């Protein structure tokens, strides 16, 4: 592994402003580098621009200025279609609100993670089964999400984010809706995945949660503190 020479994420002077009168600069000249195999926490007070940053990292939003390289690919100059393909193949998402589809079973929800990569249904189901075992929910694969606890739902969402074998797992306040016991289980899972080589970028406003990561990046008022 050649960590120093292969950043998964490289932001160069990224700015993001939203139209308005006057326009508001939410992110200002952000430089950020996340190397392969890292477990990074992005911390900062509410409203500091963490989610805006994560949306940019996840190719769900585009910077107004600056460049963003994902696995060395300059994402600021490519088509919507290629960005979608990068999301499908190289990015895994874990949201505070889980975003599980209520009409699908747990296993079907997980297998959605390979749908837009074009994996055959059987392969998606196989990976879903393996990952559900991995997050300790193999026995609930036929359950509906609403019958699960918050912590279980988030573990299902983590399994879904791993189906495509992403380069980096992006988590926005993954413990924000969880009690401390469930939060702890989710953070332990991140640590285990990290130990297995998964790259994790996690956003949180909670210093206790951030302490579980191996590196912390502070963001205040749209700027990364050195």
């Amino acid at each position, binding site marked *: 592994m050649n960590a120093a020479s292969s950043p998964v994420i490289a932001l160069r002077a990224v700015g993001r402003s939203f139209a308005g009168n006057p326009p508001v600069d939410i992110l200002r000249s952000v430089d950020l580098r996340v190397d392969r195999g890292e477990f990074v926490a992005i911390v900062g007070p509410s409203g500091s621009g963490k*989610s805006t940053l994560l*949306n940019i990292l*996840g190719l*769900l*939003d585009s910077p107004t200025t600056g460049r963003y390289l994902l696995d060395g690919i300059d994402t600021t100059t490519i088509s*919507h*279609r290629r960005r*979608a*393909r990068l*999301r*499908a*193949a190289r*990015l895994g*998402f874990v*949201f505070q*609100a889980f*975003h599980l*589809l*209520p*009409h*699908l079973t747990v296993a*079907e929800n997980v297998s*959605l*993670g*390979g*749908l*837009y*990569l*074009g*994996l*055959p*249904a059987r*392969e998606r189901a196989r990976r879903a089964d393996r990952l559900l075992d991995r997050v300790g929910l193999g026995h609930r694969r036929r359950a509906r999400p609403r019958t699960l606890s918050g912590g279980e739902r988030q573990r299902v969402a983590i399994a*879904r984010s791993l189906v*495509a074998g992403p380069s980096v797992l992006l988590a926005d306040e993954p413990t924000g809706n969880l009690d401390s016991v469930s939060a702890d289980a989710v953070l332990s899972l991140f640590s285990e995945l990290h130990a297995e080589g998964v790259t994790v970028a996690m956003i949180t406003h909670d210093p206790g949660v951030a302490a579980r990561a191996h590196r912390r990046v502070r963001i205040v008022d749209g700027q990364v503190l050195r």
Partner: protein
Amino acid sequence: MSRGRARPGSILGEAMAGISARPGRLALTMLGEALGLAALVATVGLASTASGQVSDHFDRASADRVTVQVEPSRAERGARLPRDAERLVQRLEGVEAAGTLTRLEVSDPVGTVRLLDPQAPPDPMLPVLAASPGLLDAVDARVAGRRYDAGHVARADPVALLGAGAARRLGVTELSHGPAIWIGDRALTVIGIIEEVDGRGELLDSVVLPETTAAQQFGWQGALSMQLDVAPQAAETIARQAPLAIAPQDPSVVNAAAPPSDAQLRDRVQGDVSSLLVLLGLVALIAGGVGIANIMLLSVMERIGEIGLRRALGATRGDLMTQFLAESALVGLLGGIVGTSLGFVTSMVVALSRDWTPRLDPLLLAAPVAGLVVGVLAGAFPAWRAGSLEPAEALRTL
């Protein structure tokens, strides 16, 4: 193994899962469209069954008659058809039989005895008609007893035919002894009874006698109308040619008309009824489509989080539009299948309850496709909405 983009089949699978997530809503959504299509299918199905059923019956009485008449204001001033009118029209292509007919001005009742019996009910006033022998052919008359012929005409014999209705009113049933009738003090021998005619139904209620007899006894001075039996499809043309053939110097003295046949009348009435039903069905179909569009739009709004998630998982705008369009199309197709089946069953039940042989227009098998098209049209705007949502915005909404 990975294609780097979603397989079309898998998006269709997502669409199916999407609509089957809420079966009750699915049923209600497609109901309007299904009812509209059912109305259309039943209308078209019954129209083809019914027309198959009655066309045979009506074809026998199709448009093969032409009526010629002296223009009434000219008749007032004494105008009559020329004596050789019958022969003149026979020259026209397609005329199969022709005969003249004139109602006589008669003020006397018709009776079977000469002397009035004060106890008996008064004799009836019956129409008295002068007809050429050819007229009976022109109306395809069925006569019991015998008809009058050229001999009777030449001699101006005092003979008459009674329409079946007139014979009943006069109590004439038996012809073998040559019953007599009296019109005032004029005696006529009844030689036949007209039992059935095809056109000129008034013959059945009248006394009918040769024109020469009418000339001698009732002052007949020439025919006022003529009835033609013509080849099928020739009626319109002959009606146009007849006035000139009969009165070349002054065609306007003669009116000729091909009355609409029963079949034409029936088609017109039936056409009006079914186009009204078709219109109602179309309105219901459009209302059903609007209903689908509404529910699909509601569904897009409810599922904004799902849309954001799918974008995060790598769906393109096109993938989401495809999914929602497919959901709408599936709803439309299901509604189409349900509606077509309902319509088929309805027309079957109606046909069988009338002892008709059900005939189903194979074109109706296209009805489910119409449902699909409605679904696609209804889903276009909601699908566009689903595709145009910004993923970051969509994910912010819980």
